[in-house]
């Protein structure tokens, strides 16, 4: 085992962390908001919504 072997394990671990972060937020989002809200985007309707958005 040398530095590069440890780096391989670190890369697997970091990949798993990013994957879990995505999946956790995905589940949280899909269970918090209704499907109507999540798929409410319509082409050409953007300008008005941008004005109202708050981060």
């Amino acid at each position, binding site marked *: 085992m*040398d*530095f*590069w072997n440890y*780096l*391989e*394990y670190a*890369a*697997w671990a*970091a*990949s798993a962390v*990013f*994957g879990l*972060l*995505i*999946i956790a*937020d*995905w589940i949280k*989002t899909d*269970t*918090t*908001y*209704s*499907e*109507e*809200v*999540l*798929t*409410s*985007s*319509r*082409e*050409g*309707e*953007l*300008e008005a*919504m*941008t004005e109202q*958005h708050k*981060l």
Partner: protein
Amino acid sequence: MADTADTTKKVGLLRVLGPAHVWALGVGIVLVGEYMGWNFGVGKGGAYAALVSCWFAGVLYTCVAMIDSEVTSTVAAAGGQYTQAKHIVGPLMAFNVGLYLVFAYTMLEAANAWTVGFLVQTVGGLAGHEGTINDDPFIVLTIMFLAWLNYRGVLATLTFNLVITAFAFAAIILLFLMTGPFGEVGLLQHTELMSGQAALPYGWLGILAAMHFGLWYYLGIEGTTQAAEEVRSPARSLPFGTLAGIMTLVIAATLTWYVSVGLMPWEYLGTAGTPLFDAARLSGSPLLVWLLGIGTLFATLASANGCINDASRAWFSMGRDRYLPSWFGAVHPTYRTPYRAIVFLIPIACLFALKLPLDQIITFSILSGLLGYTFMPLNMIMFRKKWPMGSIKRGYEHPFHPLPSIVLLSLCAITFFAVFLGYGTQLVAMIAFYIVASLWFHFWRYRFVNRASQFTMPWPRPKGY
């Protein structure tokens, strides 16, 4: 499941990007082609053949950039060429163009992730590691990290692209300056390396064979159109970012060719895995070795990052229009990104990168791109015919119409012929796939499309309708 206060809320993508982000998206996807790949054209026909293919493809992509700038600055919605096709040609063309985009970008993303794994293996070997480093974890990490970044928001994603793309471009400029005008006299040996038999080792046939690889210098610049729904001022930012991008790439491609063929014999350059990094090592400057080494990694990451951005926007747009299940048309209420499209494409990119041979991935990516370029001139001619100048407001009007469309169509025909000579089986397989997909769309999927809300632009009826 949902709180009642949300049921009246609407969410959509955010207009937060500027022209620099558009530049970073377009150039970021492409610049990796300067760091590797283009040089296989040198192996096919020598240094002069690679220069002819570089400028030939430069003309092709300048036409692409001009045409895209005009149409996208007018049809300013996510989906890019897919949305253009939907408004100008029709649903079946739009479905096909959407698939071209998703396949071209997802396969390119996979190829980039594979390249990151290869770079880690190379650095490990140079650092004295004995045995083989497993590249799988680095391939998966590249895809997961960039997908997470894209998931979290477009502004951070493309600002990241801007920084690493600018670094990679600056490294090429420095390589030129430190080996050419301000370098050691006699370092570049064009006369010795490009005369006699080395000038055109396979004659004019070699030039034709090298054409395919000229695309590497610019492949993906048309991806700027995918930012159309997220730029603050589409009519200004998209043409500005796209045209600045193609100028950057023509300069970077020419300098890359000039330095590389002046340092390496064509027989070696034509098979090199990382030609610019090799050029830096031959320069004898440790600074250049570091800069070009980091530049290679940054260019690869920028390309994969831009590809995730573009593939997800195309997939999202098709879902939003119900060309695909509407589930894919969801927008994250906080980050304002097409999060389901981003997540859905992660395993597909991993599968391509881990299970398919690199040359097949790249060939299918280029072929999908080429089909897209063939659509563009036809789309442009129909656009000007249906909505002549003065009938609608355009953000940018490209000059000399229909000359760029005719040039682009002719160059696409020549490139198809060149690709057929080298990759005939893949070309036929690709076209067969799109024919089967078209039949599925026509006979099954189209019944689900919300036809009444397809056309969203506030334009008058097209001429003749």
